[in-house]
């Protein structure tokens, strides 16, 4: 009897081990990341597929109360500097989630690379994963934490820096400090940057190519005020330093496109040299940016597109259109509508967003030159920019000079004048793109919005040190032990 029990026990053991293999079969055609190609494909998801442009732009001084047009909370909330309860596309919450989704993909790729027997051959993938992970965290910390500042960043709460895949439903995280996040970003960015190889990409413009990664580094060090590095990485970003050939041809190629739809779709095309990195985002911004009650109107158009532009005395070649003659737009936000089925009338709107452009790198470098005392180089950069932006531009008559800057900005300090000029050009160049918000954060500018109520109007102000300059973290983060931002 005892023997037969033993036999039975052995059989059971055999059966159970057999079962283990039998039950190890995946239940569906899910993908397991085993080959370098699959890891590369996974990294296609390591970019935040959410648009920050809408919410950021609506908090800047590029918009006002036009008093006409439909209302949409996703524009009204930021216009009123209010925390948004919106959770769908174009809301801070949506951006938060999509950034962390991108980070999760990067971390998953890193795990697969580590586990791969030929991880040495995967260094390019590792580079992309690290830089992509750094990018999402960098954007999150700038939006959801106090802006970087050498003095206070060692104590200002940051955002959780995630370096490994989450495997439980609710995990506890720590915000640490802004300084910590910046250090982590720097570490990942610099390690990754060295490993990136453009030959690895099917669609290099949608991945951190060498140029885009250097552009990211130039932005990172600009925000960190490490100007020597800004110049270093800006120089590495654009091939042969040939910015003129890589800026958008507003006064050349773009000037010849008469169809506004065509122009709009060209702006974020991969073949446009100025676009260093693109990402597809689920967003309604293309529908909202040019017709809602709060937006760009003629009064702000007159500030952004002075006729003539004071430093060059030229007329902007950037095309401006209007809707109902009150809503002003630059045709750069284009919608790609993804239908739920081939012949459906409903679906999800997408916007292709240029995350890094040659223009930004040029401005980053000019600003760094200005801060490092090389005003000649800074002015030269601005002239490169101007040469592509003004109709009938002439290098002789429209040349920007120190004198013109000092005179227009009424200063004797060329550095101050240069910074003001760069900020103004940036503001015009990146209208609708939300980039102004970062300048507002960097320079601690206040923002004032007009609120019209019937016949009367009032002003609401976001002060320089306003708590509302830091976007509110989604309340569900409390589950993970994350404190919300003060209000």
């Amino acid at each position, binding site marked *: 009897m005892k023997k037969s029990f033993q036999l039975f026990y052995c059989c059971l053991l055999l*059966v159970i081990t057999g079962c*283990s293999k*039998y*039950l*190890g*079969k*995946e*239940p*569906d*055609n*899910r*993908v*397991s*990341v085993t080959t370098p190609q699959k890891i590369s*494909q*996974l990294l*296609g*998801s390591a970019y935040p597929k959410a648009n920050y442009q809408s919410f950021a732009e609506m908090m800047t001084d590029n918009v006002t109360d036009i008093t006409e047009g439909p209302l949409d909370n996703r524009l009204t909330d930021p216009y009123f500097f209010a925390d948004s309860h919106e959770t*769908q596309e174009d809301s801070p919450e949506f951006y*938060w*989630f999509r950034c*962390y*989704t*991108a980070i*999760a*993909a990067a*971390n*998953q790729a890193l795990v697969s690379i580590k586990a791969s027997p030929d991880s040495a051959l995967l260094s390019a993938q590792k580079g992309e994963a690290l830089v992509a992970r750094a990018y999402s965290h960098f954007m999150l910390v700038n939006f959801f934490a106090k802006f970087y500042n050498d003095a206070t960043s060692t104590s200002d709460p940051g955002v959780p820096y*995630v370096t490994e*895949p*989450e*495997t*439980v*439903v*609710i995990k506890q995280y720590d915000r640490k400090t802004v300084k910590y996040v910046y250090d982590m970003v720097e570490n990942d960015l610099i390690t990754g940057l060295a490993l990136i190889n453009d030959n690895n990409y*099917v*669609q290099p413009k*949608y991945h951190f190519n060498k140029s885009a990664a250097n552009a990211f580094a130039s932005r990172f060090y600009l925000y960190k005020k490490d100007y020597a590095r800004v110049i270093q990485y800006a120089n590495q970003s654009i091939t042969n330093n040939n910015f003129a050939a890589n800026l958008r041809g507003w006064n050349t190629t773009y000037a010849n496109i008469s*169809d506004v*739809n065509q122009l709009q779709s060209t702006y974020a*095309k*991969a073949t446009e040299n100025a676009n260093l990195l*693109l990402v*597809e985002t689920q967003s309604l911004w293309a529908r909202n940016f040019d017709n809602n009650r709060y937006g760009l109107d003629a009064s702000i158009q007159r500030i952004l597109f002075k006729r003539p532009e004071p430093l060059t005395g030229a007329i902007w070649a950037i095309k401006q259109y209007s809707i109902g003659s009150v809503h002003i737009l630059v045709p750069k936000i*284009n919608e*790609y509508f*993804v*239908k739920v089925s*081939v*012949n*459906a009338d*409903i679906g*999800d709107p*997408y916007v292709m967003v240029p995350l890094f452009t040659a223009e930004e790198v040029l401005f980053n470098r000019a600003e760094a030159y200005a801060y490092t005392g090389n005003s000649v180089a800074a002015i030269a950069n601005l002239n490169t920019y101007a040469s592509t932006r003004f109709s009938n531009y002439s290098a002789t008559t429209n040349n920007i000079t120190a004198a013109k800057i000092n005179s227009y900005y009424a200063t004797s300090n060329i550095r101050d004048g240069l910074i003001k000029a760069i900020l103004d050009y940036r503001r015009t160049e990146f209208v609708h793109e939300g980039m102004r918000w970062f300048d507002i954060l960097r320079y601690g500018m206040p923002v004032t919005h007009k609120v019209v109520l019937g016949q009367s109007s009032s002003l609401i102000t976001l002060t320089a040190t306003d708590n509302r300059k830091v976007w509110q973290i*989604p309340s*569900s*983060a409390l*589950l*993970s032990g*994350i404190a919300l931002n003060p209000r």
Partner: protein
Amino acid sequence: MKTSLLRKSIRLLTSANCIKSSIPVILFLTVIGLKLPAHPLSGKTSTDFKIGGTDKNFETGKTRNIYKAFYFQKKPVADTVIRGRVTTKDGVPLQGVSITVKGKNKGTTTNETGAFILSGVLPSSTVVISIIGFESQEIKPAGRTSLIVALEPGANTLTDVVVTGFQNIDKKKFTGAAVTLKATDVRMDGYTDVSRMLEGKAAGVSVQNVSSTFGSAPKVRIRGATSINGDNKPLWVVDGVVLEDIVNISNDQLSSGDPTTLLGSPVAGINANDIESFDILKDAAATALYGARAMNGVVVITTKKGRSGKPSINYTGNFSTQLKPMYADFNIMNSAQQMSLLAELERKGVLTTGILANENYGVYGKMYSLLNPDANGNFPLQNTTEAKNAYLKKAALTNTDWFNTLFRNSLMQEHSLSISSGTEKSQHFFSTSFYNDNGWTIADNVKRYTLNFRNNYTLSDRLTVGFLTTASVRQQKVPGTLKRVSNPVTGEFDRDFDINPFGFAFNTSRTLSEYDETGKLQYYQRNYAPFNVVKELQNNYIDISVLDLKLQGELSYKITKNLKYDFIGALRYVKSTQEHQITEGSNMANAYRSAGTSGIRNKNKFLYRDPDNPGSQPIIVLPYGGFYNRTEDRLLNFDVRNSLNYTNTIADKHNINILLGQQVKYADRQNFNNTGYGYQYDNGGIPFVDYRILKQTIESSFPYYDMTKNYDRFAAFYLNAQYTYDRKYNFYGTVRYDGSNQLGSSRNARWLPTWSFGGSWNIDEEGFMKNVNAVDYLKLRASYGLTASLGPATNSNIILKSATTNRTFPTERESVLQLINLENADLTWEKNYQTNLGLDGGFFKGKLTFSLDVYSRKSFDLISTIKVSGIGGEALKAANYADLTSRGAELLVGGQVVKRKNWGWRTSLTFGYNDTKISNVKNHPLIFDLVKAEGGNTEGHPVSSLFSVKFNGLSHTNGVPLFINQEGKQSTDVYLQSDSIQYLKYEGPVDPKITGGFANTFTYKSFSLYIFITYQAGNKIRLYPVFKTSYSDFNAFPKEFNDRWEMPGDESITKVPSIVDAFNRAQIGQAYPYNNYNYSTERVADGGFVRLKTVSLTYNMESNSLKRIGFNNVSLTAAAINPLLIYSDPMLKGQDPEFYNSGGVAQPIQKQITLSLKLGL
């Protein structure tokens, strides 16, 4: 039984030849208080008889006379051969009756004449005579060698067995809650889907016919829902093997009307005539051996087996007709009323000549198109007021009966033939059937062929084997349809090109007609293309074919007297094909080539827009041909089980039964679908494919063909023990250990132990009950256990799926891996603790039986979404955290109330109450998820609860409805995609809380009348969505429009909104107040109803007539199915309370008349 034996003995006493016979004689010598009668044997000395006993006291019936008796018996013989015959009480021979010697492994079955021979019976033995459907008898032959036994029809006796699929358990020993239904009691002649037959038959089993098209599954719930997002349907088991679904249809999909729903019924391939019995297992103890698949209860189907004896042949023929629906039953305006409404629309500027550029138009659009000259320059209709009025007047008088056009009184035939034969060593059962329905509508028909072949062999005393082959083939045609798409923007479900005949008749204006006055087909416009419904149904249809094949083998080997080994193995292969054929002449194909004017070109969504050339005009990309779209589903399933069974009875008091087993399941499913563009049906079947139609598909990021595979691997080990003490106390316990790959390949989540235990007390066996004659049986049961089910999450490891990026330019797209779900290391099965208390009783010899159960169930670890910080990369996670409690009670009361020689009345009433409550869920449903007809789930409410947008009157200025919107403010616009649900009104659950049935059978001589009523209550129904922002002259209008708002001030007397004029329609803009009205508190009705489900009259030919014609049985039944809805909420106005009018392939339940002929040879 003691009494009956005694009475017989008294008769024997007076019989002179009793001595000659070998029947045991009981000789009464004295009756107390009476003089001793003359001794018939006195003076005779016989060597044949001896005094076999001493004085004994007997009791008889009510008189309680005490007899003193001696009994004489033939001298003991070692073994007796008993010959006998078993019949029904009417004398009809019973075949296949089991005759066994109690406590011995000895037995036989009766042959076709009801005769049997049983050898080796000791005089002291008890012979048990039993067959399902009759009350068993135990007879002590006591020396008799001939037995004539008449069996009484069984009425819910406890002498039956419960078939769990793993074991057959004596009901007396059973501790769980289960209902055994004989097929003869359940069968509804003329119905083909056996799952629908269970409606109202078993307490606690709710069956809702959300659609009744052949092949679609009803919504079956045993004791209500146990899961929030997972499956709530029971497990179907046929002859011990789980019937796997071909495709898994989710709770909401069931009522979607999508073509896939026609593969939803797991039992559609089963011939109802092959079924012997159903066992519905309800509580944890009953379902224990299904462990982690048992959460929603189990329905076990046992099919017929061959019986030894001369071949018996049975034929069943059902001939049915389904009645056409009638306008009188619905609340739809006639054409004159509709025309007056259209005239209002015309006055309001809606029906101008501009409608010619509309997607759809009817009678007005047709009129405007006729005003244009034809090819010969003639004007079909003069542009004069008189001519137009004459045209419109004619339309007003048209009164087309669409139901008459699209439906027919169909003829359904079902022929089923079975042959049963066998010897003691081998038995065979063969059956085949053919079902043909030529279609209730002009667009559908079904043919089904089934085969069932079963052989059982007794190879030796120890070894028995059995083989079972079943096959079914289905060929079905249904109207062409696409999958519906939920459109939360407008609050509708979109289904392009829907031509569901019921939906069409219900929604289409009666001013339209099929033919014009010259008898030619009359075309109106739909999707910018000419449309005639009859022609469209001929040119756009789906052919479905299903092949279902099962091979099953069984082996049983007796290792020792008490230990038995059992094997059961099955292979099942199912292949189904849906061929959606859309010919070039169809409206659907023509819609792709309608580009007559630039207005149409710009609006027609079926044209191609080149993204590289955004300014260009859309172009036709399907210039020739139609479509050939194919969907294939395949299932390959193995199921193998090995078990050891030990039974022993110690000292006649301790009965032990132990079962140890192992099971492995393997199921591979494959789904394939393909869109075939440009197939030219009339042109030799050559496809004409314009490359741009593929370009369009690819540019929209859709695959033009698609294949998915699913792999289901499952293994389990189980141990079950039963112990009975002295027939009084039963104990039952099961542990089971299940493993599955369905949660993902991670090891942690894979295994789950489940367990249950129960006890029961046969009160009637107690000494103190011995004298209570009124009680046949009385049993108290209790059980408790853990069961489980797989939830709708599979991410025990990370789930990545391949996708193409959504980028504007095709040249910039690439293939990426998307993160679908993060790993959830804690993922586990959905579980449920069940407690059940039951009391069964039978009184007055079957005159009254009842079974009462109360239960409570606590589901936990249910999968639901929870919003988390998102820091891990996933904002909404599916996790095991939600809880659901449910409570309920079930009652079955019945009995053979009257039983006389010529007439009788049997009745049974079932009542089931179930209430569920989601006690914990942190999901974020949108308004649309909760207000739709299928309902949604939120904390604090039952599963699938219906909510409504609060109606807040009509606007004073234009009669547009007003609501309390998502922000709590009065508005015409409710944003249905908002997750702000606190302003909605809770209406009630969609599933009924109370369900049941009331069956009565009256018999008079050879006739029996059966009346069956079903009822349900406690749920709410969303009324059909009939209100729209804009109506075209295509739409039918319900009669409530007569009460609509027409002028300011009307809002105080009516709640029916106005019909919007062109100006107000423009004002409404992007809001959808009329769609919202469909989801408002005004459009909800109570779901309770009482339905006369079946009335049938059966004539059974009497046995002496049968003998003359050489048949064993002949019966003829006339039945009406669903003849009458006795009560439903008057708000419904003809809407069927069970049916979801979702278009596609959905059909409401039909009124049906059936003639059924049964012949037995």
